[in-house]
């Protein structure tokens, strides 16, 4: 009997020792998989491909990019969510693109409230644009048309559709969301063709077409465009909350030390000269923010959007 206990103890001690060495071993020891929930060549994909080589340098192991497209990004999100929380699988998340389906109970296989957030990579701010020479000078002109103003969009679940619908609902401005355009540039071309009255799109995308468009207002608190008033200046206090975030996170329960290492590597990569240069020349703005702040942002975004569940549930 005592022998058995001793054996058991010895085994336990042995196990402890083993797990001790496992924890002590330097993370990372093997390649990190970076999941992009969309096909290669898109916006999220290009961001990840730009930072991955620099993250490799910072971490000292390979960073393997895996594209898992499907179900509007939910398939890739679910894959990351279900992975082992060992820090070897992370992904890029579309917020509020993935927030809204979750709030409406249409999400599958992930829960944003317990994802281990590693850092925010980029934040796109929105602006309201009309066709040059359209005669619309302000949001009031659009709201006072006597009929809902037409807004071009990709799909009802897209971030700019969510932004347009919630923002206009809060100020009781009627809007008709014309959906189904193939990409955000197509929605801007639709505006140039005169099919719709206005569009709310990321500032960087609109700026490319500024010769044909008038940007009436940016959705922010401080001016990023010198001659365009911000929503806060014009008294729309809530509007600055609407952003598109490209945020990096892993499955729930990644140990804090590994989360910190990943976050540090991500920040080093995002602030590296190579990535900064890519960002400027390709007009893909960065907004690197570490793990703690990213987690706080995510909580706040969830609260913000859940206030507008009714508007979201209405469809278009």
């Amino acid at each position, binding site marked *: 009997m005592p022998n058995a206990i001793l054996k058991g103890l010895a085994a336990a001690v042995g196990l402890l020792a083993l797990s001790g060495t496992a924890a002590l071993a330097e993370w990372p020891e093997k390649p990190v998989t970076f999941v992009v929930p969309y096909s290669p060549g898109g916006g999220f994909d290009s961001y990840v491909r730009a930072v991955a080589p620099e993250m490799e340098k910072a971490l000292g192991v390979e960073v393997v990019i895996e594209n898992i497209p499907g179900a509007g990004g939910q398939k890739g999100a679910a894959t990351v969510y279900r992975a082992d929380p060992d820090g070897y699988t992370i992904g890029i998340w579309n917020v509020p693109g993935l927030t809204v389906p979750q709030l409406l109970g249409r999400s599958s296989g992930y829960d944003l409230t317990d994802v281990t957030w590693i850092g925010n990579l980029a934040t796109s701010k929105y602006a309201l644009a009309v066709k040059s020479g359209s005669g619309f000078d302000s949001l009031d002109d659009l709201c006072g048309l006597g009929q809902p103003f037409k807004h071009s969009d990709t*799909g009802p679940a897209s971030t700019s559709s969510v932004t347009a619908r919630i923002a206009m609902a809060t100020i009781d401005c009627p809007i008709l969301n014309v959906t189904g355009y193939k990409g955000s*540039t197509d929605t801007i071309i639709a505006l140039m063709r005169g099919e719709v009255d206005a569009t709310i799109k990321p500032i960087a995308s609109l700026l490319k077409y500024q010769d044909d468009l008038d940007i009436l207002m940016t959705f922010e608190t401080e001016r990023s465009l010198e001659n365009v008033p911000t929503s806060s200046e014009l008294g729309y206090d809530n509007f600055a909350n609407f952003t598109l975030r490209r945020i990096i996170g892993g499955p729930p329960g990644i140990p804090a030390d590994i989360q910190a290492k990943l976050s540090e590597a991500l920040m080093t990569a995002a602030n590296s000269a190579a990535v900064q240069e890519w960002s400027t020349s390709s007009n893909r703005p960065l907004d690197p923010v570490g793990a703690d702040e990213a987690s706080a942002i995510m909580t706040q975004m969830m609260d913000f959007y859940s206030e507008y569940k009714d508007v979201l549930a209405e469809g278009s």
Partner: protein
Amino acid sequence: MGFDQLFDAIALVLGSGSVIYVLLGVALGLCFGVIPGLGGTTALALLVPVTFTMEPLDAMYLAGGVMGATSFGGSLTAILLNTPGTAPNAATTFDGYPLAQQGKAGMAIGASATASAMGGLIGLFTLLLVIPVARELVLAFGPAEFLLLTILGLVAIAVASRGKLLRGLIAGGLGLMLAFVGSDTVSGELRFTLDTDYLWDGIPLVPTLTGMFALSQMIELGLKGGSVAGTGSAVSGRISGIGSGVIAVFRHWTVLLRGSAIGTIIGAIPGLGGTVASFIAYTSTVQASRDPESFGKGNIVGVIAPESANNAKDGGSLVPTVAFGIPGSAETALFLGILVLHGIDPGPTILLQNQQEVYGLIVALTLSAVGASLIGLLFARWLVLITFVNVHFLVPVVVAVSLTGVYVLDGKPGDVVLAMVMGIIGYLMMRFDYPRLTLVIALVLGETAERSFHQTRMISDNDMLGFMAARPQSLILIALIVLTLLLPSLRRLPIFRRSTT
């Protein structure tokens, strides 16, 4: 006009060693084209990460080489095995395969190679001509015109099913129903998804097409046994007619021009692309022919029309790209993605700021269209031997390779299951004489039709007809639709009778 820049770009690619990238692209494109299930989109998607470390211009050469070569590669299996290598080659099977069965595969390949090269050149030439007005062209075509074009495509289905109209309509209706699976473009509601998130994005084209054509054809061959070109007594060993195929293209130059024009126009419309272009090119050729009964039985013109269209589409798909930096096809979308990776921001100034890359791509496409066809002609004599191989060796290889191809694009096991289901449905349709391509075309058109219907309804304040009546470009398309529907009846009028006999 764009031609000066073109010559500079040609000098640049020929003067540097970079032409090797074009050749590499052509070789890859041919391989991906030949294999059912794999296509240009898959090839480019797999290449995106590889191009990351390359010079932007070299990446363009590689992408152009691939884009220009896949559709010719795909015509080879369409002709030899009744299995389109890529989606746009589906219409080529109608007459290409009967030719192969008659032992005239060489002639069909000769025609396909020449039509592909010429179609590609005509499409790119048109692109260079329209560059100055590309912007206006893109702005002139809105949802109303897209809707009318899809209706034109659906009308072509009815025309294509001469003699078996009801079966054609049943297959087309089934295709439309499949097109409505997935999330609704307006409300985002999920429809007919059978509680699986696999169907949220709808029924994907490539697995459907691979199942419908490649797998069903393999079932058919496997059950029949023997080899494609008969049991190999009289015809075997005699591989000729490549030259006569080449000549046929020039003899039927009106078919070539019409096919190329249709390919260029449809290629410029996002969401439709080569599959619809080659189908409409085929049906319009049948319609214009004085001897429509000869199609489907090995008429060489039935190879020329779709093959010229599906190569001309590349030029067309670049029109929205040069105008606004937006893609006209899945391939051009990946091409733009490659630019972003290299720190280039495609936009309305793409032609001014990234002239080198755009013209590099155009040159690569040109070289590729011609190069792929030359390679094809050189190897045609050996490729034809496939039709003499015992199908019991052929079937397992094609099934394994095409199912792998289906899996590779998105890595979804569901795609493989879908392809197998479609293979069985396709075989049954074959058995009971229902047109399979009709179903596939309706599936492609249905998605765009539904989307542009809703858009037109909303932007016209629910007055669609009034809206279209005020747009000349819409009226032209309406006239074409009416003409397509009436033509079969008009042909019976005495005035046309004389010429048809």
